[in-house]
């Protein structure tokens, strides 16, 4: 699943249109749009708003380690070496207020430029701010909040800020049409990044830890196993599968067993331990 966080509807609109996302109709604190394998939330402006919306989204939809979170939006660039409309994949995100820096792992291929994003609590105008006080190549008001919040849920190679250069921190008025055009123009690059993640996930082995396999759940229920015993069973099954490269067929005979007491369950559990130790 791809979780996309934007600040404003003008940034979200081209993504919603491109992927055919539909607005969730149930009451919700944030505007959420869903589609095939994509969920998008509009956070509103500020570090805290972005962090709140990101946490909400990843909790509400039960994000796991196989999912990806993207913060997409416009930004201001410090230097004119970056052109308006350029998409920047940020390899370092600095919270200007706390000076805390976050580092996504850039593992998958992409066709964007890379740079450092610095997130401020208020709009930055180069006329009022000396350039030396700006550490980032690009500046926004959400990225660090998004990244810090997403880091509680996902590994660092699954969290990215994609920022599209809108102005040069010169206080230019935001034109919704131009924002739409800039984001729309970079959707192929964002989609390419997403495709690479899909390919990576096909290649990566399934992480068994995330959820119990069905057979473990069923047997645990039927044998009235304790939490500890269920955990042991899960480990034994995983261990068996790693050693034999197949599921333990002999376990299937325990699927229909329903015990009437925990003691009876323990007797079956010992038998299972013996079977899985080979």
């Amino acid at each position: 699943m791809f979780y996309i966080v934007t600040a404003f509807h003008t940034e979200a609109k081209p993504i919603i249109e491109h992927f055919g996302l539909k607005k969730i109709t149930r009451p919700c604190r944030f505007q959420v749009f869903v589609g095939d394998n994509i969920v998008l939330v509009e956070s509103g402006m500020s570090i805290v708003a972005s962090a709140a919306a990101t946490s909400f989204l990843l909790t509400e939809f039960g994000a796991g380690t196989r999912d990806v979170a993207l913060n997409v939006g416009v930004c201001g660039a410090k230097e004119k070496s970056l052109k308006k409309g350029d998409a920047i994949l940020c390899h370092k995100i600095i919270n200007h207020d706390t000076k805390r820096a976050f580092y996504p792992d850039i593992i998958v291929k992409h066709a964007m430029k890379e740079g450092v994003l610095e997130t401020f609590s208020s709009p930055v105008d180069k006329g009022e701010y000396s350039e030396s006080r700006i550490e980032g190549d690009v500046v926004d008001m959400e990225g660090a909040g998004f990244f810090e919040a997403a880091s509680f849920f996902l590994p660092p190679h699954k969290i990215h800020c994609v920022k599209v250069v809108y102005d040069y921190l010169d206080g230019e008025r935001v034109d919704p049409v131009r924002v739409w055009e800039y984001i729309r123009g970079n959707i192929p690059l964002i989609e390419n990044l997403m495709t690479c993640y899909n390919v990576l996930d096909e290649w990566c082995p399934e992480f068994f830890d995330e959820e119990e396999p069905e057979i473990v759940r069923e047997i645990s229920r039927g044998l009235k196993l304790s939490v500890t015993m269920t955990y042991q069973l899960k480990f034994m099954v995983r261990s068996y599968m790693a050693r034999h490269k197949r599921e333990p067929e002999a376990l299937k005979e325990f699927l229909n067993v329903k015990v009437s007491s925990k003691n009876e369950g323990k007797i079956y559990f010992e038998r299972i331990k013996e079977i899985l130790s080979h």
Partner: protein
Amino acid sequence: MKGLKKYSVIKSFSHIYVEEGVMDHPVTREIIGKFPGAVKIGIKHYKDVFCRPRQNFIVQEMSRKLILARKKGEIIYSGPEVCQDFGNKNFYYTSPILNCIYGCEYCYLRGMYPSANIVVFVNIEDYFKEVENLLKQQPVYLCLSYDTDLLAMERIVPFTSRWIVHASDKRDLIIEIRTKSANYSAIRQLPPAGNIILAWTLSPSEVIEKYEQKTPSLELRLKSIKKAADDGWKVRLCFDPVLYFENWQRAYDYLINQTFATIQPEKIYDASIGVFRISRDYLKRMRKIASASEIIFYPYEERNGIYSYPEELKEEILEYVFGLVRKYLPTEKIFI
């Protein structure tokens, strides 16, 4: 599968993280000069990148990044109990680099570090100073290449050469540089030093193909060893870890016969034999990340916080491999 990976994953060392304090260090400049296309990212402390929560070691192994940093605090450590001291007193080890480019499936580094990225401590001069301070108190036996493969990294950062040059005139210092690489050519220009031991880890081809996939083949390793031994270096052979698998006896028969058919036994300084062993905490972490590794999920037995084969099997393996090596080397040159 390889095609899929090639399609989606950036090649290793595409990004180099550099601590602010070492930006201008000559070793930093030397390394960066070798990767002109890499993206350089400034960091405050290497742990800001290396110790991030929830990193995926297996995914990072596909596209390792370099982290250049300054080692602060303790630099040289007492030799760990699970490692062989080869009869040396004052056994120490140090880690100029954290992590290894090879990523062997059974390697404890997968359980030891939170990240697969490679940290190079560029301040090698501080390591040298620390060794000199230690040498003022006592002779030192120092192992350099436990938490990395230093010789395998030689083309990226020539620490092996620098250590050899630095240590070669220090009488009270014995250095062991352990490797699986076939990169002897990178240090061949140096004159052999009597206090430097080049130690090669050797495994049967079956093990290399299955669990040490990124390492050089047995043949290439043996060629390197032969050249080093013929040039007059002290060469140590490490049959460690010896692994238990179907037909292991036959595999180790072949390995040891092949080794001594290639290298004259009298040119070998000594050898070590050790079965697979790993600390409880490392194994626990490795089992979390290595979802389908038969070697990691073997039902090892725990003794004093260390997991290894059941005692009887361990003894059988050690005795068998010792018997094979004993055909070529005198007992006093074999360490278990």
